[in-house]
């Protein structure tokens, strides 16, 4: 019988050491410096960055941080929804990721501010229909029909609703879980279980519409009904990879001895494998195949842009790096069970999750994409388009956001035990084994 052995819940085993304070402050410092430098350089046009590219890079960096935190929130919701026992020992790191949703809206303020100083069309072409009409009447005609949804006021209201919903959900789950450490109240678990259902619905709707608002509307004439789910696969990829990485890091620090075992790592690995690799590929392919098969001019341009010039290698990188290579690498049991291989897979997936966001946000669909007689003509004109991955501004901005998210997560973990010590299912998690 799997008798849970005597587990050490003392602060030596379940609290971050004083060094984490240094790390947190350093992360805040580096994050602020990177973001400041990135914005300054971008605004001053360094590395030949035009305003539109700069804002898109900023959006990629922001979405990278946001999706990771949303992935953490989704993990919490789904654990309570299924009343899972195994995951209690690794729930705190997910709470730490989700807790960032309480402040991450601050990083989106610059984007929202563009609507107040009249430069929103730099990023969202639909914000200035007159200019769009002058540049591309065809697109403007289509986008004009979407004005009831794509208008500045409604966009701002929606953004506020999304961030409020996420902050509220993150607060609800982190607050109840943290307080349970003190009072051990059963009603907290019951309440989190009860509200996890509505929370899942709210999560699904807000992430879907956020994906439509912030990514899909960058190319306002294009549409895909699968897009929200595709964005969600990105959230879980980033979230689960980060969760696995944090968990492995904590065990490497000598913490959580006798609490987190290879069994928990294996399950985190399974989730990363199932959602980050398989589900992502499944949804990505479903979206691609429907558009490829139907071959409608208003839909195919989005993919055509991404398969010529500098974007072709990025697309192939995603196919192999986000799916085929990690799929074969992680399919068997042992790479999921060892900290070193799981951490390597997590870092790998985080890199490709970033590339995925970059691939979603950055390419510009040329106005004349639908006018070529043959594929060869298209390649002849756009076959040399750069993908801009060499621009260091990308990495400065992303490092800034990533550092701030790291600092926020550390700050959350500093304030409490690294494991929900009085969760009613903790013993179940401690003695959990994969059959």
């Amino acid at each position: 019988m799997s008798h849970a052995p005597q587990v050490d819940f003392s602060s030596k085993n379940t609290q971050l050491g004083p060094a984490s304070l240094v790390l947190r402050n350093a992360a805040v410092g580096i994050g602020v410096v990177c973001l400041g430098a990135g914005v300054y350089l971008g605004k001053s046009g360094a590395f030949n960055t035009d305003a539109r590219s700069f804002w898109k890079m900023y959006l990629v960096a922001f979405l990278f941080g946001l999706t990771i935190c949303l992935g953490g929130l989704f993990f919490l919701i789904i654990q309570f929804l299924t009343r899972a026992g195994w995951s209690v020992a690794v729930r705190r790191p997910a709470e730490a990721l989700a807790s960032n949703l309480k402040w991450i809206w601050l990083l989106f303020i610059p984007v929202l501010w563009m609507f107040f100083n009249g430069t929103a069309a730099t990023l969202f072409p639909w914000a200035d229909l007159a200019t769009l009409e002058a540049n591309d009447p065809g697109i403007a005609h289509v986008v004009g029909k979407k004005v009831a949804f794509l208008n500045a006021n409604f966009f701002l209201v929606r953004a506020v609703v999304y961030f409020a919903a996420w902050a509220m959900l993150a607060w609800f789950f982190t607050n109840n879980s943290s307080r349970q450490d003190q009072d051990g109240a059963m009603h907290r678990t019951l309440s989190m279980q009860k509200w996890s259902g509505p929370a899942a619905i709210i999560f699904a709707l807000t992430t879907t519409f956020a994906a439509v608002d912030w990514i899909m509307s960058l190319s306002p004439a294009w549409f895909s009904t699968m897009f929200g789910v595709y964005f969600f696969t990105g959230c879980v990829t980033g979230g689960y990879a980060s969760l696995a990485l944090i968990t492995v890091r904590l065990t490497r620090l000598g913490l959580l001895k006798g609490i987190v075992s290879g069994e928990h790592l294996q399950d985190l690995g399974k989730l990363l494998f199932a959602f980050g690799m398989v589900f992502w590929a499944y949804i990505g392919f479903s979206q691609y195949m429907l558009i490829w098969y139907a071959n409608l001019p208003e839909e195919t341009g989005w993919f055509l842009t991404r398969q010529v010039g500098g974007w072709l290698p990025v697309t192939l990188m995603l196919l192999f790096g986000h799916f085929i290579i990690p799929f074969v690498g992680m399919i068997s049991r042992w790479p999921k069970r060892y900290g070193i291989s799981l951490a390597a897979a997590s870092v790998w997936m985080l890199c490709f999750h970033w590339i995925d966001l970059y691939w979603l946000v950055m390419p510009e669909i040329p106005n004349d994409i639908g006018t070529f007689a043959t594929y060869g003509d298209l390649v002849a004109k756009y076959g040399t388009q750069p993908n801009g991955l060499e621009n260091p501004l990308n990495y400065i901005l992303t490092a800034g956001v990533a550092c701030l998210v790291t600092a926020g997560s550390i700050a959350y973990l500093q304030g409490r035990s690294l494991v929900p010590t009085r969760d009613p299912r903790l013993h179940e998690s401690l003695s959990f084994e994969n059959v």
Partner: protein
Amino acid sequence: MSSVTQETSTARRPVYGLIAEFDNTGDLMRAAEKVRDAGYIWWDCCTPFPVHGLDKAMGVKRTILPVLVFGAGATGTAAAFALQTFTNSFSFSTWALVKVTGYPYLISGKPMMSLPAFIPVIFEVTVLFSALSCVGLMFLFNGLPRLYHPLLQNNRFRRATNDRFFVVIEARDPKFLRGTTEAFLRTLGASAVEAVED
């Protein structure tokens, strides 16, 4: 017919093995570890529900089933790709000394070899091959289907589906000696030890 039945029931039948009954999983786990360490090979544990950690206590090696299923899945991938490549091709001219031709259909101007269109079929056939081979090989490895088992004749053993836990050591085990093994099982804290006829 009735005489035959009588004859078999009165005759001394060979022993299938010994069963030891335990009241709880803790006793069973400890017993399993000792049976494992004593070097028995042909033995098993029977429980009403899956007991975590029992495989380790029994020293059961991990199955090679996943590797075989991966192979079957890869075969499915290759087979589905080959099937579609062949059926969409104009001709595989002289194969098996006959001219063989596929069924090329031009669908909405797509190329004959359209990989995106092949992928759903490749995916489905991969899943089909994996699932069928997984179930089939599991039956094969477990010696199923098996319509008769000596243990099912034993009245005490009936509670293995309810609230008792059993260690069964078969007579064909090289270390099996009726008296010694029975005494050994009694030392493990079994609530009952009993011989089962074949």
